[in-house]
């Protein structure tokens, strides 16, 4: 279970998070929606220690993340970055097996490669992709490799930051289905950041709407369509009129 308790974060005069409270239950797939620049990515980066909150607490399975020893808890996490964030100096299989070749999860090279190829197969990529460099792959293939890297060490918690951004609708559908399948099969707790409503419909058990630095609404996917929340209604229907300003 992940608990965000009154998280605040400012960058200079820009107050991005102004008291976020959110609970994600174990094995649940939570999707956080909201406009661009509302702090969705910042929120998940606070859990990973990439951004330190100014105030508030984060608990993962009741353990305080801000004061925890980072090495111990990061091995429980997998993260799919918006741009893939693949290491362009190494071939695909080494990207996927990165965690399995270093630190306390280190495996022999042949075993690590074997697992990498199995994870690549799981995200729909052929073994011959393993020896190619990330720059030789299409955007959709890079996303899949990044997904394979995120699940390589069988993490308990996976974060997906805008998993379908920059992909065509067909590839976006493929990635959404893959994420849903992996989350269900692995029983992992997942938080997905997106403003793609197709992703929300495929991936989410629960949905939270982040706006003006706070969670405006949180509920199940089924409840979202009749939430009665003007922010959520405007967002899911993509209306220009409403409480969310179009000029940000």
């Amino acid at each position, binding site marked *: 279970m992940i608990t965000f308790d009154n998280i605040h974060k400012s960058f200079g005069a820009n107050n991005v998070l102004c008291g976020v409270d959110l609970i994600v239950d174990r094995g649940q797939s939570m999707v956080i929606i909201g406009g661009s620049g509302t702090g969705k990515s910042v929120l998940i980066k606070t859990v*990973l*220690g990439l951004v330190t909150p100014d105030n508030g607490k984060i608990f993962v399975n009741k353990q305080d993340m801000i004061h925890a020893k980072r090495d111990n808890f990061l091995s429980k996490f997998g*993260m799919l970055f*918006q*741009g893939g*964030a693949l*290491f362009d100096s190494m071939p695909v299989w080494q990207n996927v097996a990165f965690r399995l070749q*270093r630190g306390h999860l280190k495996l022999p090279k042949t075993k690590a490669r074997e697992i990498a190829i199995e994870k690549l197969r799981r995200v729909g990529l052929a073994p011959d992709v393993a020896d190619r460099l990330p720059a030789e792959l299409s955007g959709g293939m890079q996303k899949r490799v990044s997904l394979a890297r995120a699940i390589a060490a069988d993490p308990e918690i996976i974060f997906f930051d805008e998993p379908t951004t920059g992909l065509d609708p067909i590839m976006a559908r493929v990635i959404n289905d893959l994420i849903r399948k992996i989350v269900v099969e692995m029983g992992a707790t997942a938080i997905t950041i997106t403003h793609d409503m197709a992703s929300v419909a495929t991936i989410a058990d629960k949905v939270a709407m982040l706006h003006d630095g706070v969670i405006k609404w949180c509920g199940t996917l089924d409840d979202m369509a009749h939430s009665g929340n003007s922010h959520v209604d405007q967002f899911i229907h993509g209306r220009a009129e409403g409480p969310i300003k179009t000029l940000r």
Partner: protein
Amino acid sequence: MILSLIESIIALGRLVFGAFSALGRVVIFIITTLSHIFRPPFYPREFASAVMNVGYLSLPVVGITSIFTGAALALQIYSGGSRFNAPEVVPQIVAIGMVRELGPVLVGLMIAARVTSSITAELATMKVTEQIDALITLSTVPLKYLVLPRVLAGFLVGPILVGVADSVGILGGFLVATQTLGFNSATYILDTINFLTSADIISSLAKGAAFGFIATLMGCYYGLNSGRGAQGVGTATKSSVQAAAVLILAANFLLTAVFFTA
């Protein structure tokens, strides 16, 4: 009048505060990086790759610049020495000039141009494309994985490059002196060997270590602290080369003062 004076004092204060603040950040960066030297995990492959990039791949440019510099130095000293009837000092002055000053400084500036810029561009691009964040989420400390191998490689390979630059520079002077200025080969070599002291060579190699450290450190520091986007990468790269070149020349002065005036 008083107002403008106060404004000037405030501006000066900001400048001094900014300089000390930057110095503090660099010192913390150095201490944090070096604190990882004896703590596992270790990354020998990254270290070997850095040695290859900083050292082996720098050899051609270091060799070419040194041989031309040594050759030009021999011509200059022969011409200058002739003004007070002492053209025979060419071997000694080429040797001392290359070993004490030109060899280390040339290597320092060549590393700054070739290695500092490439390290900054690489790390800054990794930062912009979230690869640094990805490293952290994969339980890898960027200072240990990216910075320490490069800085150690610079520190250890710098003296080797300086040794090469010194030797090749002296060879350049030797070739010009013996082929065009009429010096005897055996006498030239003996004069060179007899004139140089161990202090000359030690100071040269020490400068190489210091300059290699500074060049790679500046590359890493500016790379990991770059701004966003292509402009951020460009600015970081420019700043790192400038900082490395200035610090290398300042360190050269300080080390020369320490070795030869103390």
